[in-house]
């Protein structure tokens, strides 16, 4: 890494902002903080951080508005922080272009893991990477083949498309709507029953224990996430 990754933390709670600044600085990140949406947007425009950590509940403006403003001109990864039971707000944020979410209270480890995923997605270019590994699961994008260990796994074209999307976004949450849109097309975004069926089939084929998935985990009410490593 040429220079330290710069992270903007926008949260109105002083204690949390302070804690995140301390923990992230201690791990070598440059941290910008802002207590309001307005100040946060100014900081983002002026200093262009690589990653944004955004609390959805801000005093002056809805966090969703911040995502919308940023997405007008930047693809900077956005990790949102929100309370339990705010699935609707989380989904809205993810659909507006946020990259991931954390439910409060969270541990620093969880946040760091999300930040690492975001950093990797900043660097990688999918075309340069025909082989993707997660644990002992390997997808070969050039040959459209999937292996677990030495064993070849046979997938239907739809299952393959689904797995490919997961592998390209490993470590990252994918909403039901995103999965349905990317794999089946725009007309299928509400058909979660269809998605359930394919996820169950895919887990049967790739997971050592399909009902205790190690690769594709469920994000309750939101979607699914492929393990990171």
């Amino acid at each position, binding site marked *: 890494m040429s220079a330290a990754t710069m992270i903007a933390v926008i949260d109105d709670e002083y204690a949390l902002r302070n804690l995140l600044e301390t923990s992230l600085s201690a791990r070598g990140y440059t941290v910008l903080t802002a207590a309001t949406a307005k100040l946060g947007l100014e900081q983002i425009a002026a200093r262009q951080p690589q990653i944004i950590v955004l609390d959805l509940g801000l005093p002056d403006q809805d966090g969703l508005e911040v995502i919308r403003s940023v997405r007008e001109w930047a693809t900077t990864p956005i990790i949102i922080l929100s309370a*339990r*039971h705010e*699935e*609707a707000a989380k989904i809205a944020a993810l659909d507006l272009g946020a990259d991931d979410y954390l439910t409060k*209270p969270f541990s620093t480890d969880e946040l760091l893991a999300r930040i690492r995923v975001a950093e990797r997605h900043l660097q990688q270019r999918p075309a340069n990477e025909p082989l993707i590994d997660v644990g002992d699961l390997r997808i070969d994008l050039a040959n459209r083949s999937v292996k677990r260990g030495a064993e070849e796994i046979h997938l239907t074209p739809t299952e393959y498309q689904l797995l490919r999307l997961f592998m390209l976004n490993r470590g990252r949450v994918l909403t*039901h709507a995103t999965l349905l849109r990317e794999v089946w097309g725009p007309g299928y975004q509400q058909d*979660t*029953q269809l998605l*359930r*069926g394919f996820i*169950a089939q895919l887990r049967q084929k790739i997971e050592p224990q399909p*009902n*205790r998935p190690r690769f594709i985990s*469920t994000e*309750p*009410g939101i979607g699914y996430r492929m393990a990171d490593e």
Partner: protein
Amino acid sequence: MHTSLETLRPRGLERVFLQHPLARYGGAMLIIATSTLLAVGLEPVLQTESIQLFYVLGVLLAAITSGFIPATLAALLSFISINFFFTDPRYTLFIARPEDIPRLIEFVIVAILAGALASYARHQAGQAQRRGAQAVALYALSQAMSSATNQQARLQQFVNTTARLLDLPFCSVQLNAEGQQAHAERKPRDGTIQRLDLPLEYANTTIGALTVGWPLDRRFLASDDLYLLRLLAAQLGQALENARLAEAAAQIEHMRESDKLKTALLSSISHDLRTPLAAIKGAASELQATDVHWSPELQQQLLATITDQTARLNHLVANLLDLSRIQAGAVKPNKDWYSIDEVIYHTLDSLAPLIDDHTIDVEIAPDLPLIQLDFVLTEQVLSNLLINALRYSSADQPISVSASATPQELIVAVRDHGPGIAASDREHVFEPFYRARQSADRVPGSGVGLAICRGFIEVQGGRIWLDASYTAGALIGFALPRPEEQQL
């Protein structure tokens, strides 16, 4: 109940009591004409006094059927007839014998007095009959309105019942306060219909307006029906006022209940909030202390205390928030298709640190269908049930979670081999802040877990229960409805 006031009126009396003026006066004349014909025919075998009795009988009949004035008319006609047909010289109105004059005057007085008495009796009978009909009508209305559960239904019952009872072509009511209104219409009848507006009052305050279509050709005395209409309107005013008072009383009761709840909440959770806070504060201040050098192991122990107690505090606060969301009716299930084993294993994974060296057996029936549920809510229910089971079980008492399906429902049950729940506590365990007496002192808990379970299951259209037939420990089951297309 489809009675109208017409059917409530006794038919026999109705026919005897003539109503129309033409019928009443015509009837009186007809009766006297008949009396005259009979008297003329029977004269050869009758004495003069019997002939007069014939006419008195006629006057009485006229009084009963037509009332006082037609009876008086009948008495005068009788006097003329007796004078004309039976008093010498006959077929003139001239009276030859002076002794006939007091006889005829006596007759007129007796006839008029008898007529007066009979018509009074007629009036009384009619009055009693009308009061009876009004009582029946008021009863019918109060019956109809008492079945209504809200204001709108009450108004609708009122207009329907009033229109039916009085056989009105239309009846509508409008309240001033909330602008609520109701309207009823019946098949149009022939004849002129007048629109009639009456104020709806309670305790000298106008609370709305009543509008009815009033047929002008009523068979019964219109003033009586109008009186009845006013009675019905007064009853509506009273009923609305009663409903308002009942609502106010219920609100006060609700406030009293929630006050009781708040007191219970404070006493129950203050302990549960303070304990972890005290542990966290203690551990943190120890770590800050400069006079002691903590070994790395002891530091780790203090930090573990902070992490564990924070998790406990977080769980408690989350439960309290959930309970208040349930009580505020703010929980909106976000249902989606899931397989129940996904929920079960996800819950077990997130509880892994708590499960520790306990054994939890999972028994999932094969080929369970996908079901629509709110994953987050259902996971929390299962999580609360398992946390309870873990709390009340030692490591050698296995816990089991099972899932099965009936054609209508998907059923999940959590069994433990702990002390179970005493019979006296069973009906209360799902109430907020209720803690089984036997355990309240020994096992930590705030008594909200099962209340949340019930709230989260019911909001998804399911049900939750305690199985009293299971005696080896506690068994709590919940069922979620299967979609209709799966129910064969």
